[in-house]
């Protein structure tokens, strides 16, 4: 196994760890961190697999996609954080409570 593949596997593991945190942890700030880690995992996989090319340079297209993705991620994070603060102001809790009726 070569090093790009190790990093690609790290990428999917990060995605899964983030997903786990997103499901298990309740605090919204933690969920936002989890989404960021998932994103990093995807970016890592996208770029690492781009290093499989036969030439000396890695594939630049995933690089551009990831830069796009990083900016999207920071935008979403900023929005999520503001929303969280407003929600805490309004409801007094940084945890989303499920009404029992909504459980499915």
């Amino acid at each position: 196994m070569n090093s790009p593949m190790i990093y690609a596997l790290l990428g999917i593991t990060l995605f899964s760890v983030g997903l786990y945190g997103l499901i298990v942890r309740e605090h919204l700030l933690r969920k936002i961190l989890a989404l960021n880690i998932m994103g990093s995992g995807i970016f890592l996989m996208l770029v690492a697999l781009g290093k499989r090319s036969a030439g000396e340079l890695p594939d630049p297209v995933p690089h551009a996609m990831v830069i796009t993705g990083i900016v999207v991620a920071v935008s979403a994070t900023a929005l999520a954080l503001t929303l969280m603060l407003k929600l805490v102001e309004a409801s007094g809790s940084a945890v989303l409570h499920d009404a029992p009726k909504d459980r499915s």
Partner: protein
Amino acid sequence: MEALDFALGLFDILLVFLVLSLAWLVMSSEDLFRAIVLFVAFGLLMALVWVRLEAPDIALAEAAIGAGLTGALMMAALDRLSSVKPIQKVAASAQRKQLSLSSKVLPLIALVLIVLGLGYALLSLPEIADGLTPNVKENMAQSGVKNPVTAVLLNFRGYDTLLEMVVLLLALLSVWSLGGERKLSPRSTNPILGSLCRVLVPVLILVSCYLLWVGADAPGGAFQAGSVLGAAGVLLLLSGWHVEQKYLLWPLRFILILGSGVFIIMAAVLLLIQGGLLTYPVAQAGWMILLLESAATLSIGATLAALFLGGVPKSRVDQ
């Protein structure tokens, strides 16, 4: 040479291990402050990973945005969270009791299954694949720049970047719509912070200009330059920078939309002249891309700093 390969392999494994354990700790540590600090460390190590993957452009963006600005946003949010209400502890402990063993173990099993499944999928990909490398190489001469990543971002897939500028603006619009007005913080009385600003802000602006300029043929470009500019903005906001109200209305909004606006106008003009959306004439591509990037840098910097503020900025009245 073999010794070097071996050392690098060892380094890779160490790095993978560190990144993974940091991610796990970010998710599992009880203290939120600690989780955020660890997340910043995670971001910095990710920047190192990008260097190992020969992706210096991403390394720059990750260090500035992924670790720096995201971390600053989180820290600021945590700070405001604790000033809103000290309720999180209660809520967390109340919830903790509900968490039975099965609700923690089941997701863990799911996690392992997902890793195994996706891992199997990855390992069955072909060993060697060129992706779009040959296509990029072939068309580099017509792109107007020498850095392949900039060529993809601003030329080959420039339309993605246009839409992405809109995403950034949308996040800001939503934050402004939610956050209401927010007064700029009072001037800091801390002399060190003040002098740090006086030295660092000009340096950051210089670095930003350099990154923007060098992006045409080396790692760098609008996003990296913009995020450095945004960092300078955050520093200024922290130190209690005074901006008069009249600049916060029209001029600020103008800077915020400049990036997407110039992009859209350029796209429309090129559609009329060249008959294609964002189809640059080969000879003029270089300066057109630089123009787009300059506008984008300003907008990205202003937007990131404004996102950090978390509301419609309002000048404080001194005295």
